[in-house]
């Protein structure tokens, strides 16, 4: 049994932040969860999907974040409790619906969980969802530890139902993916029945239709909710203070930065001089609470990641209360004490704190850093991000790059988000030349594909994954076909949402709860939409490349589906199609005629250069046995033997 279903009250368990959120939702009696996979949020729906049947939940991986929020909202409209987790850029996708949802209001508790990724550890942006809370006027909660992640999620449902508004709960990578001890509360029997009441008076929030108009009527109501939330937040136990009554410096912080700040105060032994105000309710800010603590100090340091969200809103309150509490000195983003981008860590906060407080901080001798850098540069192996051994994307981009080179018209690839984003770097032969949001590869390519009237004759390619195809590629595909753009779309179909852990998508015949589901055929969809469609196996290098070269010479929208299951997929993992070996007699190594073509250019981690022997060798432990290196070797020195 999953520990998430533990019934014993008061027991403590080591939970990942995302699991704590799941437990919180279960303790709130959640009924429905819908999301789209995205690091660092994926484990929430993942965990719920595994216990859905046991707990009588409906859980789905929706086609994208906007649809997932719509699905969750429907449950709320029918008086159920619903959870909608997504990563930060998912909120952008959902934001159009979210704007209207904030205005229309909800019925059953509805919590949108956004897991942000400051520092872009597993993203191609470090966008922030916090600003959406202010922009769209909905309450924002940010847990500062793992217990809070659970407790706050549970409370978020109650708050949502109390004010009849969607509530946003924001986590970050270090909160979602780190683990901590969480004490459990009771798991309720929910027994809620779904019924959507909409026959009431049009302006009746409880029984009327759920709509965002008339805006003149609904918007003041929505703003009234925020006013009420502000009062509730004044008393929230999630806003805590630790430190002296009167401090030399007050740190105001939230989320994972609470942990960094506490550690920094401890490391510099400043607990008796520096106060720590940790906020769990970060929009709207409770002004009375802030006034109270601002009055206890002259200097304030605001510790938060990426943009100065807290900083600016605290400053507004400080300005409004300046007459009573006096002028304050602020440290944070705007004066450069804390960096405006990237992830924070205790070291950065220590540096800021030591600078402001004039406390010397030399945890390591300066020579140590120099020595460490020297060792790192000279002794650590030079490893850059790359595709896994046996990854179909390596083969796909090998073919795409070759086809573009042969075509010789300086063609390029427009890309989007997936493991295949790495084709923008040497791992994928630097083939991707534009890289933006989900589906935007084809959207941008559709635009490029109309520029021939301005003299552009470079062939334009776009790539997308199979999950991305359903998420956001259909509208630009319609656009490109309708406008007769000259584009070749390459669908890198590896049979799952591979990057985030093989979550199912509409192209597969199974859903999140493991039930059989009708699968939508990407090739058929493209065909009926009017595109010329070809399907190849990217491991068949020759056929893939020649097909691409042919498609590139044709006008209009062409779709090449490159079908090969991800090397890490559960069905493939550990199974090798070929046993690979190097014929050391034939391997010519560094000579003119090869110049380490396989290890220098193909760069599969399973194919390694032996510096002493000056020959290639197969690292059998990680080689996935895809066999393509055998086709790449100019000397026929890489032998593949089919594993029976």
């Amino acid at each position, binding site marked *: 049994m999953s520990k998430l279903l533990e019934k014993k009250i008061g027991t403590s368990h080591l939970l990942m932040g995302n699991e704590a959120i799941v437990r919180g939702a279960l303790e709130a009696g959640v009924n429905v969860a819908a999301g789209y996979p995205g690091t660092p949020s994926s484990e929430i729906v993942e965990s719920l999907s595994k216990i859905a049947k046991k707990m009588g939940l409906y859980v789905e991986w929706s086609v994208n974040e906007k649809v997932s929020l719509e699905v969750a909202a429907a449950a709320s409209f029918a008086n159920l409790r619903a959870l909608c987790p997504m990563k930060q850029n998912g909120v952008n996708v959902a934001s159009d619906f979210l704007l209207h949802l904030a205005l229309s209001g909800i019925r059953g508790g509805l919590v949108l969980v956004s897991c942000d990724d400051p520092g872009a550890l597993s993203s191609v942006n470090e966008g922030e969802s916090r600003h959406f809370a202010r922009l769209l006027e909905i309450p924002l909660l940010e847990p500062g530890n793992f217990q809070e992640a659970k407790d706050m999620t549970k409370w978020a449902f109650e708050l949502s139902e109390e004010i009849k508004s969607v509530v946003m709960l924001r986590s970050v990578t270090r909160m979602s993916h780190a683990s901590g001890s969480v004490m459990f509360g009771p798991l309720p029997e929910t027994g809620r029945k779904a019924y959507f009441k909409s026959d009431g008076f049009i302006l009746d929030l409880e029984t009327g239709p759920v709509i965002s108009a008339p805006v003149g009527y609904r918007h003041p109501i929505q703003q009234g909710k925020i006013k009420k939330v502000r009062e509730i937040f004044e008393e929230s136990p999630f806003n805590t203070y630790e430190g002296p009554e009167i401090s030399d410096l007050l740190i105001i912080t939230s989320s994972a930065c609470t942990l960094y700040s506490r550690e920094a105060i401890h490391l510099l032994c400043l607990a008796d001089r520096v106060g720590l105000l940790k906020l769990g309710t970060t929009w709207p800010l409770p002004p009375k609470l802030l006034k109270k603590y601002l009055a206890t100090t002259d200097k304030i340091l605001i510790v938060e990641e990426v943009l100065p969200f807290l900083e600016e809103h605290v400053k507004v309150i400080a300005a409004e209360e300046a007459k009573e509490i006096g002028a304050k000195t602020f440290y944070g983003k705007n004066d450069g004490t804390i960096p405006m981008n990237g992830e924070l860590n205790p070291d950065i906060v220590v540096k800021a704190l030591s600078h402001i407080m004039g406390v010397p901080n030399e945890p390591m001798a300066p020579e140590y850093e120099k020595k460490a850098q020297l060792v790192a540069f000279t002794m650590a192996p030079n490893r850059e991000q790359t595709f896994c051994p046996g990854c179909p994307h390596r083969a796909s981009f090998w073919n795409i790059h*070759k086809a573009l*080179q*042969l075509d*010789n018209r300086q063609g390029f690839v427009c890309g989007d988000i997936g493991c295949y984003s790495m084709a923008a770097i040497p791992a994928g*032969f630097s083939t991707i030349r534009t890289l933006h949001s989900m589906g935007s590869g084809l959207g941008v390519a559709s635009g490029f594909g109309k520029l021939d009237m301005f003299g552009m004759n470079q062939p334009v390619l776009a790539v997308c994954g199979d999950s991305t195809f359903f998420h956001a590629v259909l509208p630009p595909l319609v656009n490109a076909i309708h406008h007769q753009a000259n584009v070749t779309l390459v669908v890198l179909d590896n049979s799952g949402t591979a990057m985030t852990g093989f979550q199912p998508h509409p192209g597969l015949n199974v859903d999140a709860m493991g039930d059989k589901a009708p699968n939508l055929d990407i090739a058929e969809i493209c065909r009926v939409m009017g595109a010329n469609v070809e399907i190849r196996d990217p491991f068949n290098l020759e056929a893939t490349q020649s097909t691409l070269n042919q498609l590139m010479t044709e006008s209009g929208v062409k779709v090449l589906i490159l079908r090969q299951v991800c090397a890490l997929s559960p069905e493939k993992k550990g199974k090798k199609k070929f046993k690979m070996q190097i014929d050391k007699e034939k391997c010519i190594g560094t*000579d*003119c*005629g*090869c*110049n380490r*073509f396989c290890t220098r*250019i193909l760069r599969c981690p399973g194919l390694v250069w032996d510096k002493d022997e000056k020959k290639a060798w197969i690292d059998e432990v990680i080689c996935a046995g895809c066999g393509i290196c055998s086709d*790449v070797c*100019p000397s026929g020195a890489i032998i593949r033997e089919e594993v029976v």
Partner: protein
Amino acid sequence: MENVIKDQKELRMEVRESHLCTGCGACVNLCPYQIYYRDQVIEWHPCDIKSGRCYAYCPRTPVNLDVLKAELFEESLLTPEIGAIKGFYVTRAADISIRKGAQHGGTVTALMSLALQERIIDTAIVADKGQGLLSQGVSLNKAADLKNRGKSRFIVSPNIAEFNRQAQVGGKKIGIVVTPCQSLSLAKMRTKPVPTHAERIDQLTLVIGLFCGWALSWEMLSLLLGREGIDVKDIEGMDIPPSKYQLLQVYTMNGTVDIPLDKVDPACVREACRYCTDMTAEFTDISVGSARLPEGWEVAKGWNQVIVRTELGEKLIDLARSKGILEFHDIPEGNLERLKNASISKKRTALERISASRAAVRET
């Protein structure tokens, strides 16, 4: 002058990006980095070897031609106009079926077939019809397979790429039909400028060259033929009769189409050919081209003029004569002089263009 052997990048800058690539194929099939595709050499991936065979074998990287000739030919035979001359003949294949499948007199096909039959060589590399007008080198081991491959399409066939592929295997005696630029690349290989795999060139046994004024760009010729309403699939052959006609004749299934030469030259001529100083393929055993006869073009186009340059070339011609493989025509008076003048004229034009383009580069 010492020849510095540089790398792939320099080769690209000095040759391809300077529009000097002849498409000979010498830099292809030595390694995976260079690929021949649709009349062009493509750099697939960068190679960082400092002295590459690609650079060393390219006929358009610096080399002292006089030194090279002195090394490869009897010095007494060398002429400044058309290289070494051991013999000069007007010939045609005795076998009429060979002549039918050839551009003019079928001499090249007849000699290559003979070399295979007599086991002077075991592999003959000639041009093979590819897609569209594109040609590629093909290796043949039987004399019978050589028939019907002698028609010119005026697009360079990267035969040296095929030589490189065959030479890798080792242990062969290779005969090859080449253009002048290709004959130079093989001559450079024979001097073994890079030690890696230098021995492969020792398999080169017989080189038969083709006289060449210029080759055409595949892309430009395809566009021209399209404009003239000619379907590439219908083309059976092409020829350029003597200069007084000023025509490119395209023989199609539906008859002959005459295209005025001014539509072809310079618009469709491969840029690199405008700077070529060799008309008669000076680094060969035997070089063969069209003949000029007092009987006029209709008769002359069934014959070839042949320059024999080496002992092997002489041996092969003598064998062809004794076996009745070739028929010999009297050499009209002044033919060798006319050939020398034409060759000198090509050299002069190319040198003028080279110095003009150098001056242009200096000005910019």
